[in-house]
């Protein structure tokens, strides 16, 4: 065997060893002894190859091929470089034209005006895990439009909340596919990537004012700091992430409702509110206040009094009546957990985008709307028709069979939540017949947490500080075609088009054959 042949073997073996070392590193992700030996041996072999046949290397660097080769290499590098720079510039200034008829990728004039008046830099951060890459792409398109129209005021980035839990914690992000809008040191978490939400958040953050929400305490309500399953610490976290200042309030000891209260929340009291407190709340509401009541069924409470002062007021003034029952729902695998089967048309529920919600041990409501009353009541959610409001609690504890008793129980579908607005005073009320749904155990499940946060948003008038021009929605549908049309479509798509190509091909093949 001559030296040139040995050199060839050494070249191949050295290169193979280096590649194998690389593969070893990829698999083990660490530099260990085997890797070091492999790399060392690889380079030794290459060195041996050079020493065994030095002429070959010299030829490779000085020959005609090499001269052309290095020219080509330089030229290629130049072309790749130019293309990379051009693409990078375009990537940083993404210009685009929206060709959709409904202008899906354009902003409304209102948003454009707000962006035009932006003084401070705004940063949008999308928290998406790789599982929700589809949502991330849609959000990226939305962020792009904002960035493009903001004269450099808006920047955005994406981060993975699982890979970067510190950032997620810092902004109070509780779940995947959330977006955070930050202005200066203030930030707000949004669950839906829509123009309405993002613009609303920018508007709120650039016009900071105290946004105080008070949770009434003193009657066995949910504990805002309780981290156990029944606690409401997730509610506090979600509201604070949305830039609310959350505080507790005992009206009786304070003697009044603070002026800065955007909304009051009564979350599942276990005893009735005394008359004096109910009066204070009444007074607050008559001055344009907002109240969110989460009422547990009396079966779950210690004391039972169907006409407690607050309940009586809600019925008389607002037309929302508690029914003394416990909702049983057979669509649910746990009959005591009611499932919202139908949502009403309301800002609270339309923002939930069809996310279901469920209510462990709920009571139902009755909504009365007097014809002459100026109130605007909206039923928010109802259960399915195979549910009913059980009034005989004894049968539940005795383990009797669960059945609807005609005339005694309330028949489904049952109303579980309602929103009422008084256009005269501007006060708003939301009543939900359960408080478990937003407790820590279920807050992040489906749309449960959204329901409460949206309710507070709406009551506090923070859901839409600005109304955007609605985009033209075109509903398109395929007309049910006649048999002839279907036949025609079949003829054209399956037979005619392919057959025409086939015929032309056959003709070409045949005429060429004939010509030989």
């Amino acid at each position, binding site marked *: 065997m001559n030296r040139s042949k040995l050199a060839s073997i050494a070249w191949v073996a050295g290169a193979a060893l280096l590649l194998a070392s690389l593969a070893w590193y990829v698999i083990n992700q660490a530099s260990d002894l085997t890797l070091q030996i492999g790399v060392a041996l690889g380079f030794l072999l290459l060195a041996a190859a050079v020493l065994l046949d030095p002429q070959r290397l010299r030829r490779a660097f000085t020959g005609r091929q090499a001269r052309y080769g290095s020219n080509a290499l330089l030229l290629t590098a130049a072309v790749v470089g130019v293309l990379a720079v051009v693409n990078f510039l375009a990537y940083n200034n993404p210009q685009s034209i929206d060709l959709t008829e409904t202008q899906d990728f354009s902003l409304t004039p209102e948003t454009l005006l707000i962006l035009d008046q932006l003084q401070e830099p705004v940063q949008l951060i999308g928290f998406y895990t790789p599982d929700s890459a589809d949502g991330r792409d849609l959000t990226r398109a939305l962020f792009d439009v904002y960035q493009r129209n903001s004269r450099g005021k808006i920047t955005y980035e994406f981060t*993975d909340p699982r890979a970067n839990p510190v950032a997620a914690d810092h902004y109070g992000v509780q779940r995947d596919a959330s977006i955070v809008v930050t202005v200066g040191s203030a930030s707000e978490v949004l669950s839906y990537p829509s123009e309405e939400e993002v613009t609303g958040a920018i508007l709120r953050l650039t016009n900071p004012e105290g946004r105080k929400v008070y949770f009434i305490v003193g009657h066995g309500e949910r504990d805002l700091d309780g981290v156990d399953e029944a606690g409401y610490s997730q509610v506090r976290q979600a509201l604070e992430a949305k830039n609310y200042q959350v505080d507790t309030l005992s009206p009786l000891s304070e003697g009044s409702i603070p002026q800065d209260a955007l909304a009051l929340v009564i979350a599942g009291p276990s005893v009735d509110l005394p008359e004096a407190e109910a009066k204070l709340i009444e007074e607050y509401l008559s001055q344009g206040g907002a109240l969110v009541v989460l009422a547990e069924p009396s079966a779950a409470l210690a004391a039972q009094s169907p006409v407690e002062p607050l309940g009586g007021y809600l019925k008389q003034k607002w037309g929302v009546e508690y029914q003394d029952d416990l909702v049983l729902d057979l669509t649910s695998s746990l009959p005591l957990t009611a499932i919202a089967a139908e949502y009403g048309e309301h800002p609270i529920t339309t923002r939930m985008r069809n996310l279901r919600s469920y209510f462990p041990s709920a009571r139902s409501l009755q909504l009365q709307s007097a014809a002459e009353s100026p109130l605007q009541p909206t039923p928010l959610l109802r259960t399915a028709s195979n549910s009913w409001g059980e009034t005989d609690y004894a049968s539940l504890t005795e383990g009797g069979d669960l059945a609807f008793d005609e005339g005694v129980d309330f028949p489904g579908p049952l109303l579980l939540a309602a929103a009422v607005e008084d256009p005269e005073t501007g006060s708003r009320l939301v009543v939900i017949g359960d408080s478990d749904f937003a407790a820590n155990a279920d807050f992040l499940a489906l749309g449960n947490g959204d329901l409460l946060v949206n309710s507070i948003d709406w009551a506090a008038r923070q859901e839409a500080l600005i109304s955007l021009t609605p985009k033209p929605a075109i509903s398109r549908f395929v007309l049910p075609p006649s048999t002839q049309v279907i036949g025609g479509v079949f003829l054209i*798509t399956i037979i005619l088009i392919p057959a025409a190509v086939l015929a032309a091909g056959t003709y070409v093949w045949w005429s060429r054959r004939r010509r030989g």
Partner: protein
Amino acid sequence: MRNVWIIAARELRHYFVSPVAYALAFMVFLILGGIFFINVFFGLQSGYVSPDGRIVMGPLVTILLFITPAITMRLIADEYRMGTIELLLTAPVRDWELVTGKWLGSMLFMLAILVVTWAYPLILHRMSTPGIDQGILLAASLGIVLMVAAMLGIGVMVSAFFRSPLAAFFVTLSVLLVLWIAGGLGVGTGVASEIARQLSFVDHFYGSFYRGLLSLPDVLYYVSLTVLALFLGAQAVEARRWG
């Protein structure tokens, strides 16, 4: 530039007398027609058909992945195999003119096929009120044309590297597949992931054109890829001169 046109016209003529080209076109239309009709027919039976021109655009992109390597495989490889490359190289034609001409010929042929695929959305347009979103159809079609340009460019480039059309076919397919799945590496949030995402062949289409958005970075991506592929193809042809 005249040389480019002469070569392109010659290639285009070649396609129209080649039974293989007809077989490919037949296959495309049969599959697309089948997908279209089945979607519409069974959609009507289950009560809902989305009046959307993209009904065939999605599948078409996947079919193109397999068709374009077959269209371009013999373009330059055949010249090597038959020995006709000597004639071309000694003729007063520059390498880039040769490569661009070959590419343009295959592009014109593919455009002829793509024009026919408009039949399906237009049928759907006639069947629905108030018709399909023509803007999305236009954007998606432009995207497909740009995408095809890049795919054919890569095909011509690979064809310039090989003597055997079959080898060119499989290598082109592999290159396209690698570009196809490159986006899969870009799941993270780092710079490397971002670059991988930007290299992904399909994301530039589905992320914008397919939704009705005509965006400059995505247009540039396909144009750059085409230019780069044709440039490398010309380099490969030039390399033949040194040997």
